[in-house]
């Protein structure tokens, strides 16, 4: 087996036909490995971004259509921190987390709290309305420019044999992992974290044992959008921010969450990795334009065959 892999490794790769639709099978091992790694690095960040959406749904039972706009907000906070304070986006992401947490907490207490017991249609209208307001407010405040940061590691990469790992992708992935671990510790060990989980399971029982549910809802929503904002900030070195960036992530985000099971935090992380890998590996077999098509075929298949998501659990 190992020998076979070695032999495949030496097959010359140059092959696509001049018309561009051709590809060679079998795919050499190093190329396969390269896109797997690219997919995992991308997927880890998708995981954190979508965890926020999943957390909000799991605890509040509200599908937050405006979630991706908080990603945009987080990116702008990090961009301004880079531009005016000279903060690297990886550090600025902490600021994004804090700022968006406060914004999210206020949004929950002032707006979302009013529709928690309302019919789902009212909740959808509220969050979609929020999406429109946030996006257009950003257009008015920041203009439609695309802004990108410039940091030294943007053009650096690491080489492991035939595999290349882009530095900004690696750092973003590491930051995403770090935050996921912190989130797990928080939900598992801290009193507030346990209160959040208690409210998710049974708000009435939680109230009876002395949990302030209104406060907890606010914290959970703030935490959810802050996670997404953090994810937005750490990818700033390889993505440009504009007021409409949310539109590019909203579909990926929902796909991740549905794959992992709506409301499941661990599922969202796993879903993120799956989406990243599918996006990356599918480009080996199909033109890059069909990257998201493969994703949606899987998405529909999961909804049809396993509507509870691939992973079920907390």
């Amino acid at each position, binding site marked *: 087996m190992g020998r076979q892999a070695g032999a495949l490794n030496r097959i010359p*790769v*140059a092959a696509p036909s001049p*018309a561009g639709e051709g590809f060679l099978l079998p795919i050499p091992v190093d190329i396969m490995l390269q896109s797997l790694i690219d997919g995992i690095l991308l997927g880890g960040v998708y995981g954190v971004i979508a965890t926020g959406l999943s957390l909000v749904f799991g605890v509040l039972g509200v599908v937050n259509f405006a979630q991706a706009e908080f990603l945009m907000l987080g990116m702008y906070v990090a961009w301004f921190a880079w531009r005016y304070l000279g903060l690297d986006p990886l550090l600025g992401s902490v600021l994004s987390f804090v700022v968006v947490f406060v914004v999210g907490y206020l949004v929950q207490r002032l707006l979302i709290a009013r529709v928690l017991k309302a019919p789902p249609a009212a909740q959808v209208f509220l969050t979609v309305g929020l999406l429109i307001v946030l996006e257009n407010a950003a257009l008015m405040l920041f203009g439609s420019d695309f802004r990108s940061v*410039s940091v030294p590691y943007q053009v650096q990469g690491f080489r492991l044999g035939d595999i290349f790992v882009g530095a900004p992708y690696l750092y973003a992935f590491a930051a995403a992992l770090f935050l996921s671990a912190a989130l797990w510790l928080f939900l598992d060990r801290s009193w507030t974290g346990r209160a959040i989980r208690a409210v998710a399971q049974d708000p009435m029982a939680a109230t009876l044992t002395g949990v302030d549910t209104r406060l907890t809802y606010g914290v959970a929503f703030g935490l959810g959008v802050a996670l997404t904002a953090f994810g937005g900030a750490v990818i700033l070195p390889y993505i440009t921010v504009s007021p409409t960036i949310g539109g590019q992530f909203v579909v990926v985000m929902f796909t991740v969450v549905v794959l992992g099971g709506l409301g499941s935090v661990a599922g969202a992380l796993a879903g993120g990795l799956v989406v990243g890998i599918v996006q*990356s590996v599918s*480009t080996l077999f199909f033109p890059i334009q069909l990257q998201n098509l493969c994703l949606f075929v899987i998405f529909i298949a999961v909804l049809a065959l396993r509507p509870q998501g691939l992973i079920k659990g907390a």
Partner: protein
Amino acid sequence: MFQATVRRRLVLAGFMGLAMCGTAAVTRALAAEDVVIGVIQPLSGPNAQFGIGSQRGAELAAEMINAAGGIKALGGAKISLVMADVPTPATAAAATQRLISQNNVSAVIGAFVSSTTLAASEVTERAGIPLVTFAFADQITERGYKYVFQVSPKGTVFGEAQFNSAIEIAKAAGDKIEKVAILYEDTAYGTAQAKGLRAAATKAGVQVVLDEAYPLGITDVSPLVNKLRASGAQMAFPVSYLNDGLLIIRALRQQQIDIPVVGGAAGYIIPDFKKGLGEYAEGVLSVAAASGDLIPELAAKYKEKYGTFITHEALIHAAALDAVVQAIEKAKSKDPEKIRDALATLDYCAGFARGVPGGCVKFDANGLNASAFPIMVQWRGDEPVTVYPPKAAKQKPVWAGKPVP
């Protein structure tokens, strides 16, 4: 989610509508004999940088023409520009229609983005208003439209020039190129130019080892660059707008790929390219429709007013406006029909037309400026300079870090 997108668009359209009413009102307050020319450009959205540059070029040209006494044939009438934002092809037709019906425009210039221009030209053609454009997808002048005029060469011609000039420069530097890669954004502009690149490569007997289209809004180019690395290409020809261009160059550096990159204009030759890449922009070659060093006096005025070098879209739109003005002078009328006829027989080799390589604006039966040709520019410090062909070059090209003899 999809409803949400539609609603967002509606709200956006609403805002734009309000903004447009504002401009229209201002225009009407101006003197009655002004000649009104519509400028449609993407002033918001992903291609805003290009739209803003194009608009500045037209504005500066209008200012300079007005300062020089306006349109002499109409008793010194001043030019007044009305702007409309056309961020996407989907909004172009409606916005152009509104611009035409609310203002008594004599002609329209612009749209920069090819797919947007195609949509807008449907409206101008029906309304019988001349549209002078810089957008260069082949279809624009190949539909037999009477009212479309294009100041620059066609997209396939750009593709061929991008390929041939690069091969010539490499040859002069003693480098033989056998394998190349073509990467292009998949809307009208990228597709047309890639067609030209492909044809030129076939003709030259050079193997295209990678020929890959990617969606315009691409956020992760690593699959693209992985394919490029695996292909063993000795040179890459990306045809991109700005963000995709920046992503591609950065990903190449991350993966330590140092093959020459020859850009396809648009994103590769605007100030933001240098802003986004810093020192990594140095030496990047690109095909271009024009360059500031061909018309230094306009370039200096532009830099003084806007603080950056004049981009080729600004320059070509200045030339486009000048062409309209010359047609009005010739027709002695601001009637769109008469301006069209005057444009069709225009042969103008002065004013801002001197900034167009070839030095003239003269349209053929399809409305294409037959005398124009693409040039090759290369980043030197903060600006791209013309390096090819020799008849237009201001400096010698640099290949693989060494000046080409």
